[in-house]
């Protein structure tokens, strides 16, 4: 083992090992990009080129499914990239100037004095914008709110949404009951009830996670929460885009609705957006 080539003399190992690596690469390419796709005949890979495109990761002509994203009948709002960009255009200061009417019912800091009206402070701009837009288009029962929003422009809605989103989070004032782990309400909120096809509330409405446009519920007014769940169950409110909330609310018993509203109205948010 001591008679290797001296430093400086040509070393054939380079050629052998690099050559081996190149051959390995070529074999892997032929197998992975040509042979396997052509024998597997996976969907969208009808012909040779389609199969090759799939292997590369290129959407092929035949395999490319177009997914139209359009507003559903439940709401005119769709969470497209364009909508999301639009949401960043809201001006919170202008919104604040316009919010004087809102403040009469929803409170000067976005915390309402009358428990029938929801708190708006600290909600995401997306959640507020969607509800305003739905009131305006009549997708959500607009008996009261319709009067106020019908005259507002698109930009006004964005500004108001930005304003309420910028107000201090009200959740800090509520009691964090997260340690009552065994309560039925917390179980429903954090685990759901798979046998009834109920997803955990907390996965979309916090505190575990927030899906885009879904309102955070911690610290919300208890009667308002109850009222909305009843309206969704009865079908008098139907602006949830994929009917997901109506499906949930219909499954809830009267006592569960009360329990959930009581729990959420008291729980502090520990992971707001």
């Amino acid at each position: 083992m001591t008679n290797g080539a001296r430093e400086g003399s040509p070393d054939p190992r380079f050629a052998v090992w690099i050559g081996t690596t190149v051959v390995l690469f070529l074999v892997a390419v032929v197998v992975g990009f040509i042979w396997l796709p052509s024998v597997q005949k996976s969907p969208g890979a009808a012909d040779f080129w389609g199969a090759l495109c799939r292997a590369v990761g290129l959407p092929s002509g035949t395999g490319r499914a177009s997914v139209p994203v359009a507003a559903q009948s439940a709401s005119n709002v769709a969470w497209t990239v364009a909508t999301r960009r639009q949401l960043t255009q809201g001006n919170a200061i202008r919104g604040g100037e316009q919010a004087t009417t809102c403040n009469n019912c929803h409170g000067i800091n976005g915390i309402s004095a009358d428990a029938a009206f929801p708190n708006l402070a600290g909600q995401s701009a997306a959640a507020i914008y969607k509800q305003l837009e739905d009131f305006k288009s009549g997708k959500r029962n607009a008996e009261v709110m319709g009067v106020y929003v019908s005259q507002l422009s698109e930009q006004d809605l964005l500004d108001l949404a930005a304003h309420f989103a910028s107000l201090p989070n009200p959740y800090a004032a509520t009691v964090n009951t997260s340690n009552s782990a065994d309560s039925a309400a917390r179980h429903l909120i954090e685990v759901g009830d798979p046998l009834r096809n109920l997803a955990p509330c907390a996965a979309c409405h916090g505190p575990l996670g927030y899906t885009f446009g879904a309102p955070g519920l911690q610290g919300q007014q208890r009667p308002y929460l109850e009222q909305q769940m009843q309206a969704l169950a009865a079908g008098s409110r139907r602006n949830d885009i994929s009917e997901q909330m109506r499906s949930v609310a219909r499954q809830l018993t009267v006592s569960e609705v009360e329990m959930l509203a009581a729990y959420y109205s008291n729980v502090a948010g520990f992971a707001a957006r």
Partner: protein
Amino acid sequence: MYGSNRLVLAHFWAAFIAFIVAILLGAWQMLVRSPLHHWVDPELYYRAVTAHGTTLAYVFPTLVAMGFGYALCAVSLGRPMHGVRLAWTAFWLVIAGAAMAIATVSAGHATVLYTFYPPLSGSPYYYIGILLAVMGSWIWIGLMVSHFGRWKRDHPGLPVPLAMFAITAGALLWAWTSLGVGAEIVFLILPNAFGWTATIDPGLARVLFSWTLHAIVYFWLIPTYIAFYVLLPQAAGGRLYSDRLGRIAFLQLLIFSMPIGLHHLFADPQIGAGFKFLHTVFTGMVAVPTLLTIFTIPASLEIAGRLRGGRGVLGWIAALPWDRPLVLASAFSLLMLGLGGAGGLINMSYALNSSIHNTQWVTGHFHLIYGGAVVIMYFAIAYELWPRLTGRPLAAPSLVRLQLWTWFLGMLIVTLPWHLVGVMGQPRRMAYFDYTDPALAPQAIWVSISAVGGFVLVFSALLLVGVLLASHRGAAVGQSPLKFSLAVHPPRFLPASLNGFRIWTLLVVALTIANYGYPLAQFLFLEHTGVPAYAVQAP
């Protein structure tokens, strides 16, 4: 060690302090998500997981590799290091970056887990902290490469000592592979975290992270393998079976551990199946240096066993000096490497992977390999270095053996049940489970057992720190300097291919372009791949 003692000690102590904190967090996490405890605030759970992962992935092994690298460099080259001030700068950069990142996580502003996959988005200070720590390690890379080059220039035609060759391979590996996460943070995450971009591209971010994600494990593994090759045969009283096989193994680790990272993205739609296959093939190749090592190291141990009078097919095993920490730890390490490696074959197979992808099996796998096989050798390295660094004997050898035994058993108690519940379908990274659900009830007993294992590991980790602390207070006696294993046939001359990295580095770059070029370049023309970030911020 040629004036590097304080430098090396500082790195190891900083590493072990970070380690202790992370281990305590880890045991707490296992307890609170087990049936033995009521549910806790999931935000706290994920905060702890983020701190645990960040510390153990970016801080602890980096400090160990750096400290061990300085020791290897000074001793194997047989002369004092240059650039010691730079080395201290690097050290403080790592410490400052780590402190910044962990403080941000503790404050609840970056509960994004250590992989921080966008669109999850935390405070920019978390990412800047990680970047600072990585930049500190880049200084170390420069020092290793410069010592390697300077020694070679001063000793033309002579073989670079294996220890120096191996740590330089590790440094080059880290240099190339840390660019992935570096680019992800600088070009994608920070602009978004500061609000300069409206959307972030999760697919591109994940591909860049995968550039780092697999090879980082081999960066963690390099000190372990170096201990196998240059310390273990000497400690066992024998010789290294082959110096050249060792060099080949380290070269292969350098070449094959990086262009394979897409096997972490088997379930990702933005990568074509062909590239997943290509990376699977090269993942198979990275098993080769491990197989070489599994041949060379037991062969070296057999030489030692037979020199010590062991006879028969297996008699040499009993003749090995099992009371020495390095020998005992290496055996545990190889056992865990074997078990974990077998599991890894399942992870790397496109089809088999789908049955365990993102389950607790994966957590079990990398804890067994990294927390087990790799980290137990970090302990053994510390036990080997400590008397040389402090000039005092290692305190309580029997406690040292107890420490290694408890770490080995504790890690098996933790990870084997995790593998099992992973196969039963338990997803990883969950803050709590409802074990009263009939579908989950059978997992409860295994999760409880593994939680107990977590406390065995805490005991072992505290024992480690206790022994190392006590070893600073023994009577000062002259200690023999660190000696490296002699090969059966020590190389007098080596071919250029086994004595330098220039051409191999080019091969690494070429393979990266071949295996990662298109998966990265496709984001230049794919449309609508950006999404808004999902900010994780405490109220």
